């Protein structure tokens, strides 16, 4: 059974000049990088450009990578700096839920409870939450994606975003609260059995 090389091993091979090793490393982090960048800048094509630039910079600085640290957190710090620099220059406007579909996002549902199946409803809620994520502050979005999608620890998120740990916890807390209020405003009620069409009924 072939052994999957670790990130540190791939880094060592890439430093020795192995293009295949860096190809494997890029393949491993391409989706997380584009995922994070797209949720930050709200533009898929631009997200790919930023992610590509992040990989180029990461290779240039590969000799300074500390192998005691997770490659993911080190790489996301580079990507964070790039996306923040872009956002400071461009300041993109908040876009509507419909606009997300045009930007290449997965279909955002604004009709909660449209599908009766529980599993499908969960998927719909996830999509709605994803769309709502675009409406909160970029730093909140970034903290949420890094912590809950890329599975970085709070300390690693703090290092990647160059903020204190307490600030990351604040970001995560506020992001949750804001998303909950946005979804509630869209009609996503708390009760598992209740449907938005029956909003207004008392839930025991």
């Amino acid at each position, binding site marked *: 059974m072939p052994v999957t090389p670790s990130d540190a091993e791939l880094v060592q091979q890439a430093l020795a000049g192995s*293009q295949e090793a*860096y*190809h494997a490393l*890029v*393949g491993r982090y*391409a*989706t997380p*990088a*584009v*995922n994070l960048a*797209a*949720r930050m800048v709200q533009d*898929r094509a631009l*997200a*790919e450009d930023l*992610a*590509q630039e992040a*990989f*180029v910079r990461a*290779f*240039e600085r590969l000799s300074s990578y500390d192998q005691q640290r997770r490659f993911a957190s080190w790489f996301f710090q580079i990507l964070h700096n790039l996306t923040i620099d872009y956002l400071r220059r461009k300041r993109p406007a908040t876009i509507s839920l419909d606009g997300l579909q045009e930007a*290449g*996002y*997965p279909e955002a549902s604004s009709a909660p409870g449209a599908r009766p199946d*529980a599993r499908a*409803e*969960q*998927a719909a*809620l*996830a*999509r709605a*939450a*994803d769309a709502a*994520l675009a409406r909160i502050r970029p730093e909140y979005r970034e903290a*949420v*994606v890094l*912590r*809950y*999608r890329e599975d970085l620890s709070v300390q690693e998120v703090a290092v990647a975003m160059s903020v204190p740990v307490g600030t990351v916890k604040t970001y*995560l*807390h506020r992001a*949750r*609260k804001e*998303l*909950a209020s946005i*979804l*509630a405003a869209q009609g*996503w*009620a*708390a*009760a*598992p059995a209740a449907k938005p069409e029956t909003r207004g009924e008392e839930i025991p």
Partner: protein
Amino acid sequence: MPNDRDWLQAEQSGHDALAETMFARLVAEMPAIEPGAGFVDRTVRAVWRARARRRMVLRLARVAAALLLGITTLGSMYGLSVLAGGFIVRGAASLSHGLVWFLTSAGEGARWWWIAERIVAAASVMMASPLTAAVVAACEMIALLAIYAFRRLVWSELGTHESRKVRT
């Protein structure tokens, strides 16, 4: 089976820890935004192009540094050769002065005033052009000391000879 709406209920009821757990699960279920086809290949090609450009720049920088070093070295050698030429001329002049002095002052005794004058002249030159003057003056002093020592040797031989003549 827990429902993602439990997150909303936990938020509303203030169960923070539960809300965070449910929210983490919800975020993990969000659809991933995948890069387009060929993204990885394009990226690696871009990385390798940047690497080749950087190596070219480094090579050019090394060549430029070597050229600068070479030009500086040649320039220094030319400059030093001019200085060295001057040193040789001055050294030869000092030696010739010393020889003339030896020939004219041998048997009359050392003309200390002349030696003093030379020391003062050397000191004035040293102040005007320190490095060259220091080298030349050092050579002059060595030459003078050598001539002085030679004179002492010659005088001691002459003195012995005279005393032998007197005794005999």
